């Protein structure tokens, strides 16, 4: 390297290692010899405080002075060692005389000790992370999960109030903001929705074709794919994609706004973040989700078409079989579901973002849990709808 020679760090010569040893432990005062090169980049390491102190087990009221005549170069490793040494000696009732140290180190140690604000290093040990016994941990887990449910219901209530304010026309919201979100969650999602739903239709068609071929009824695959896409898969696939794309984005946006206190800034200005930040996002999703579902339906049916027409079924047959299988009610059931899915996805994303903690780690957690929560809610809601539609004979 360059012609660099500075007193506090530098090249290590292996012959010189850091030395701290007792010259005498019997005589009073005890003399600790400090010598050699003390270097944090050195490989020899720093002498152990514990092993030194073991040698003066009867160290009560001992006075310790230093002999630094053999000290060559040193950096903060020496001061760190001496600080640790001091703390341990004080804990054992011994007195350390810093006046016998070179003035530079004595000054650093004085600085470190004066600025300790009366708190000792050992005090921090008490601030242990919550661990404890099995029951303690179970209890902690129980309390925190109750807390998170409380938060979720609180947020749900706030969302409902915000929507109610919007309906009454009293919400402080900028609906022009919606257009941006509509673009982000709708238009920008088209390519991925096309791909996924096309492949879903294709997969469904292959599965159906394997069975139907045995009866020579391959053309019925058309109806099966059409019905499955329109009633179930279109909304579900679009929902899953938006969970991954949009719910996580919402959580990350709101979460980082939470970290940088932007949300507090809104709150203090008297602008409710629920109405200003959350509503436009959910509204954008609710607007775009049915359209995306419709688009996903068509892509899926097209995917089925590609498979089935390669198996002796004509385009015309596919068309008529699809039309025969699905009706307006099927379409509607898919679209109704998609609106509810949109609410759930938007809500999950915004909820996780708004309750985000204040670190970069927390933003990541918020995004992850938004996706997990969104997909979970989505599937649960889908199951509820399946039972409900069956109960009211809605097909």
């Amino acid at each position, binding site marked *: *390297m360059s012609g660099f020679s500075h007193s506090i760090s530098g090249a290590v010569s292996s012959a010189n290692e850091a030395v701290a040893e007792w010259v005498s432990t019997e005589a009073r005062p005890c003399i600790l010899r400090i010598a050699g090169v003390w270097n944090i*980049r050195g490989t020899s390491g720093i002498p152990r405080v514990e092993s030194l102190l073991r040698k003066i087990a009867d160290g009560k009221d001992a006075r310790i002075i230093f002999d630094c005549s053999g000290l060559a170069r040193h950096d903060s490793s020496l001061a760190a060692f001496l600080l640790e040494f001091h703390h341990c000696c004080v804990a054992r009732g011994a007195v350390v005389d810093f006046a016998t140290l070179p003035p530079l180190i004595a000054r650093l140690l004085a600085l470190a*000790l004066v600025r300790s*604000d009366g708190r000792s290093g050992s005090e921090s040990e008490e601030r242990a992370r919550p661990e404890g016994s099995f029951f303690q941990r179970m209890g902690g887990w129980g309390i925190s999960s109750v807390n998170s449910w409380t938060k979720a219901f609180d947020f749900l209530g706030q969302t409902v109030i915000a929507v109610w304010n919007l309906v009454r026309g009293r919400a402080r919201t900028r609906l022009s903001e919606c257009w941006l979100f509509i673009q982000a969650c709708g238009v920008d999602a088209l390519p991925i929705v096309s791909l996924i739903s096309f492949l879903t239709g294709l997969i469904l068609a292959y599965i159906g074709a394997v069975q139907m071929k045995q009866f020579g009824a391959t053309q019925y695959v058309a109806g099966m794919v059409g019905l499955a896409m329109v009633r179930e898969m279109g909304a579900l696939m679009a929902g899953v994609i938006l969970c991954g794309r949009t719910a996580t984005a919402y959580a990350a946006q709101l979460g980082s706004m939470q970290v940088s206190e932007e949300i507090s800034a809104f709150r203090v200005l008297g602008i409710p973040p629920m109405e200003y930040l959350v509503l436009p996002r959910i509204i954008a999703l609710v607007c775009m989700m049915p359209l995306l579902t419709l688009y996903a339906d068509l892509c899926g049916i097209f995917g089925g078409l590609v498979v089935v027409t390669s198996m002796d079924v004509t385009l015309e047959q596919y068309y008529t079989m699809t039309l025969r299988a699905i009706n307006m009610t099927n379409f509607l059931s898919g679209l109704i579901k998609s609106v509810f899915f949109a609410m759930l996805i938007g809500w999950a994303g915004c909820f996780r973002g708004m309750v985000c903690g204040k670190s970069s780690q927390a933003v990541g957690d918020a995004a992850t849990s938004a996706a997990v929560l969104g997909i979970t809610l989505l599937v649960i809601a889908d199951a509820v709808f399946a039972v409900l539609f069956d109960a009211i004979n809605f097909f």
Partner: protein
Amino acid sequence: MASTSSTFSPADKPHVAVHALKLAYGENVILRDLTFDIRRNEVFVIMGGSGCGKSTLLRHLIGLQQPASGEIFFDGAIFSSADASERTALLRRFGVMYQSGALWTSLTLAENVALPLREYTPLPDKDIAMLARYKLALVGLSGYEDYYPSEISGGMVKRASLARAMALDPEVLFLDEPGAGLDPVTSRLLDDLILQLRDSLGATVVIVTHELASIFAVADRALFLDATTRTIGALGEPNELRDHSENPRVRSFLNRKASL
């Protein structure tokens, strides 16, 4: 004042030398014709009004940005156009305290200080923990080792950030707006701490600030960046500049006058 700064210096070779530096974002020239030296063991302040390019200059000095032209020498070795491995070796001799602290929020204070040590020294974990405790004690944060940055106050974040900047015993400490966002008393204590650390660690300190009280309290020499001419307005001892600078903008800045 400046004469005291050479006590540690083996030669009068500048610690950091900047030669004909031009800083630009694309076509937009921020600062040009910057030539100055930072002496060993001095407290060197880079000052100027908002938007004069103080922070941009600092980002160039610590290698976050490449100059449009000109060179930065560190201890005689060229820094601005060094290859990657040389740069990393030089960077390890710097310590930087960022304006907002820039502590890693997912790590505790002790872990924040320990991370550079863990990466760049062969020390065992126990020694690293001991060093981290010592560095935090130096800035008055002993007892706060296991706190996360989100759990402590702004002034403590600044001090913890200083402790992290000192982790590897740097030769040059770069401090970006150390007093910003602190109350006058805390800011003053931080200034004292910086001076004490400079004296006892033997490091060179480069501070970017626009706080007059802080400039007069700590600076051996100060560099004034002129937002109007986009280059150096003046360089010298702050008291001298305040009373005798030929540049009226420097005088009004240091006298806190809203003329011009």
